[in-house]
Structures are given as C-alpha cells and as structure tokens.
C-alpha cells in the first residue's frame, strides 16, 4: 500500500506536480489496458482459486460442489501437509541463510577487483537464467548414484557413498545445495552493486584510523551493506517459499514426501490427481503466507526509496 507513494509523488509537492491538462481520461487510457488484462488473467483466477478452495471437483461429471471448510480441515489434519510445510520452511531458511552468507562473502571477495574477475562474474550470472528443468538434469547427472561425479569424489575423499537424492534424510539438503548453487549469485549481484556504489573514502578513513580488517567489516562495511542484504534475503525468501521447479526437476517430491514443497503439493494434487479443490486450499495457504512476505518486502523497498529521495 505504502510502497508506491514514492512512485506517485509526495503530497507536499502536489501543486507543482499536478500538470495543467491532466484528466481522468488520460489515466484510464494509459492504465486501463494493463488493469483490464490483470483483472482477467490474475485477479479473476486468484478469486476463482479462493472459491474453488471451498468446493469439491467431480472429475467424471466435471461439476463443482460446495463443501465449506472441508478442504482446509483435511489439509490441517493431514500429516503430509505438515511435512510439506516443514520442508518448505527448511528449504527457505537454510537456503536463504547459506545464500546470504556466501553471496556477501563473494561480493567482498570480488570487491578486490582482481584481473579477470569480470569473466567469473559473467559465469556466475548463468545459473540464475537457466531453465529449471535443465538445472535438475545437470544435478541429477552429477549426483547419479552409479556414475555421478560427486559420489566418485565423495568416495575418493573418504566420505563414502552418499544417497544424495535417495536418502530421505539427505535429499532435502541436496535441494538446499542445488538451490544455493543457482541463487547465491543473486545475493552476490545485489550486494556487490551496493558495495561498488559506496564511496571509497569511508573505507580509507577506516584504515587510517588503524581499524583491523575484521573491525572495518563488522562496524563499517556490513552495516552499510545491510539494506542490500535485507532486500536480497527477503526477495530470495519469498522466491524460495514458492519453490516448485527444483523439486519437479530433481526429486519429484521423493523419496516419499521428503522433498515435497507447498507449491509441489498443490501442483501434484491439482494437476496429477485432479483434486482441484484441495489443491486450491493448499495454494491459498501459500497466498496468505506470501502476503506477509510481500508486505515486508514492500516496506523495505519503500524505506530505501525514501532514503534516497532528494
């Protein structure tokens, strides 16, 4: 709600901003098509999902029947649902924590501006752009139990055979690993951009004062980077919460339910088992949770916009 006040101008400047010929017609002309499109293909489906979550779909007759809160009741009393919630939360918190630490470390490392680092930065962009299904494919090859390169390495280094995707205790952490491979670069790009934008004099002053490298990091660099880190963490958190592709490409939710996420649970129930009503209830639990995350993010974005406003 508030995030965009900065976009639309601040109240105090109203008189100056209000252009002479502005009419309601112009706003409609510019905004109308996009608004209508989103009403048809985003808002309407979102409302339909809500309605469907109170209904039951009969596949043979292609009819819907009101069942009140039954879907939600089934959901909250099913052990499977809570397993999936737990998986999603682990994937989200562990993944984001790893990515924030590694991404920030990478940003500090690249800030030395080593020769040739531009090439490596280019390489690091790639995983983010990759078709999710191919990410799954690559890692299924690397993690293959018979001939995968990672198990060969694990055995060589004396770690022994690891059931990366087949061991129910390991598989979720394998997902965290692959997710971090793909998305640590995102945190890196965000934090690095902020780091490069900071005035170098601040750091020079710090070293003149005789502060050690660690002190400068702790009291100078990290606090200055914090807005970018928080932004990246929330952004990644919301995305990780919706994780679907990785599960689809890597494990299909298995073994048993060990790696299924909320999105995947909704997908399976909806598209594979045709339990549209139940799947809609799952997705609406997600919508509510995501709304909290989005509110948080919008607050961060707004704060930043206000900070730099002249």
């Amino acid at each position, binding site marked *: 709600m508030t995030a965009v006040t900065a976009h639309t101008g601040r109240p105090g400047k109203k008189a100056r901003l209000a252009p002479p010929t502005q009419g309601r017609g112009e706003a409609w*002309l510019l905004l109308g098509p996009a608004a209508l*499109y989103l009403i048809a293909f985003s808002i309407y489906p979102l409302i339909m999902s809500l309605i469907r979550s109170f209904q039951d779909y009969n596949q043979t007759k292609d009819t819907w029947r009101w069942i009140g809160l039954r879907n939600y009741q089934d959901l909250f009393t099913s052990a499977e649902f809570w397993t999936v919630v737990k998986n999603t939360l682990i994937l989200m918190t562990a993944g984001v924590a790893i990515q924030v630490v590694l991404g920030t470390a990478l940003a500090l490392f690249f800030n030395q501006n080593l020769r040739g680092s531009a090439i490596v930065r280019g390489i690091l962009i790639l995983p983010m752009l990759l078709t999710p299904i191919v990410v799954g494919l690559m890692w299924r090859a690397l993690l293959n139990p018979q001939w995968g390169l990672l198990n060969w390495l694990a055995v060589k280094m004396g770690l022994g055979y690891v059931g990366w995707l087949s061991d129910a205790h390991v598989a979720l952490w394998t997902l965290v690993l692959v997710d971090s491979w793909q998305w640590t670069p995102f945190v890196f790009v965000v934090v690095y951009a902020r780091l490069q934008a900071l005035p170098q004099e601040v750091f020079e002053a710090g070293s003149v004062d005789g502060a050690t490298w660690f002190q400068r990091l702790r009291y100078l660099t990290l606090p200055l980077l914090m807005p970018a880190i928080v932004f990246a963490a929330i952004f990644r958190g919301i995305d990780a919460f919706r994780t679907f592709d990785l599960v*689809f490409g890597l494990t299909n939710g298995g073994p048993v339910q060990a790696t299924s996420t909320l999105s995947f649970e909704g997908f399976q129930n909806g598209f594979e088992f045709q339990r549209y009503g139940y799947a809609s209830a799952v997705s609406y639990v997600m919508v509510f949770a995501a709304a909290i995350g989005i509110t948080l993010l919008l607050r961060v974005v707004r704060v930043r916009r206000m900070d730099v406003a002249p």
Partner: protein
Amino acid sequence: MNGRIVGRVISYIVLVLIGLAGIAPFLYLLVLSFKSRLDVLTVPPDRHFDWSTIQENYRTVIHDDHYVTFVVNSLVVTGVATLIALGLGVPAAYAFSRLRFRGADTWASTILSFRFMPPIAVAIPIYLMIRSLGLVDSRIGLILPYVAFSLPLVIWIMIGFFDEIPREIDESAMVDGLTRPLVLLRVLLPLARPGMLVAATFGVIFVWNEFLVGLYIVNSADKETIPIAASSLLTVESPIDWNIAATVGVLTVIPILIFSMVVQRYIVRGITAGAVR
C-alpha cells in the same frame, strides 16, 4: 611484500575455484553429451571422444526430436508475450510514475505483489479458463497467461526508470501542446529505452523458462516450447538415455548462453534496481 604476493596468489586460486564451481555442471553436461550411452557410465569420464558419437547424439535431438520446432515455438511465444507485456506495461508504469489518481497506491502495490504470488495459486484456474476458451494446445493459450505473469515485472521495472527521468521534460512537452499519451510516445519512449531493454530482458527470461502452467496447456509436440518439451522428455520417473538427455540440456543452454552474453549488463541492472536505487 612477500605476504602480499602470497595473498594475491591465494586470491587467484579462490577466483578460479569460484569460476569452476559455477561452470563445472555445464561442462559435465557438455562432456556427457559427447559420449555414447554406455560411455556415460565411466567415472570419471575419460578423454576418449568419438566424432561420430557426437554427431549421432546431436542429430538425434535436433532432427528426430523436433528440437527446431521447439525453438521456433519458444521464440514466437516469448517474443509475442514480451512485446504485449511491454505494450501494456510501459504506459501503465508511466501513469503510476506521473499521474495522481484515486486508488493509485492500492493498484500499484497490488500489481507489485503479483510478482511474488505463488504461480500455483493461479495455475489451476488459468488452466481451466484456457480450457473453456478452447485454447488448449495453442500458442495463444500459452501467450495469454505468460503476458499476465510478466506484466507486473515490466511495470515494476519501468516505474523505476520513469521516476529517474525529470518531470520537467514532460511538462515542457505538454506546454508545447502534446497530450500525455503523445508525450510518452514521442518524448519519453526514446529516453526510457534502456529501461525497456531491462524490462524486456526479464520478461524474456521468465517466459522462456516457464513450464508449470504451460505443461498442461500444451500437450502435442508441435506446440511445445523448449522447457515444456524438455520437462516431458526428462521427467524424474522415466528412464533416461543420459547422453541424449545431456544433449537436450546443452541445446537448451546454448540459446540462454548467447542471450546472456548480449544482455548481461541489463540483467545486472534489473536485479540491482530495487537494491541500490
């Protein structure tokens, strides 16, 4: 002084290791795509390569598996969807950046939040909608929802870019007698071109990779995009000819690789738009 040199050397070793960690999975895929079905099983892969095997793998995928059809479908769907999203999103972003009207804040934040909604929350109704419109198994059936998915992204990115263009430019153009839509069309669009490239880049990336919704909208091979085809070819359960799967993977990565080299700076700008501004 010596410590300094050692530090440098260590830094470079770390740099190389980071690069390797990023690129190793790609290289592994490439190597697998050069092997025969049996040679894949050798760990670690040996350095024996056979030109005829390589040809055989790539010919199988490109020729027998309709790869070219998928590329064409992907190009058409991505291109059209991105253009429509820009056509709808740029004027909307301009309105949010410049005009004050009732409900502006509510609208803008609603649109922004769609960017972060779980796609599964709309996937089922959208699929049912497309089905009742009779558009299942058509390119339009894919394009319609894809525009809706990339539109919030386009609007969000463009608002930021329009905010950076001084309002005085619009105002002086309007003093010259142009209306708002004409100001946008004649004066601001050329100025906002970098922003539109950033927005288009992100729209393209999103649409090019989408398959959650597309998987069920399209079910005949001649309408499938690359990720939809790849995902039906490579599902976790079905047994896989790994050399062929790897070849599919490589051929999927190549267009993205080329694209990323061309637009790298727009990608970085887009990602950091929210963070540094």
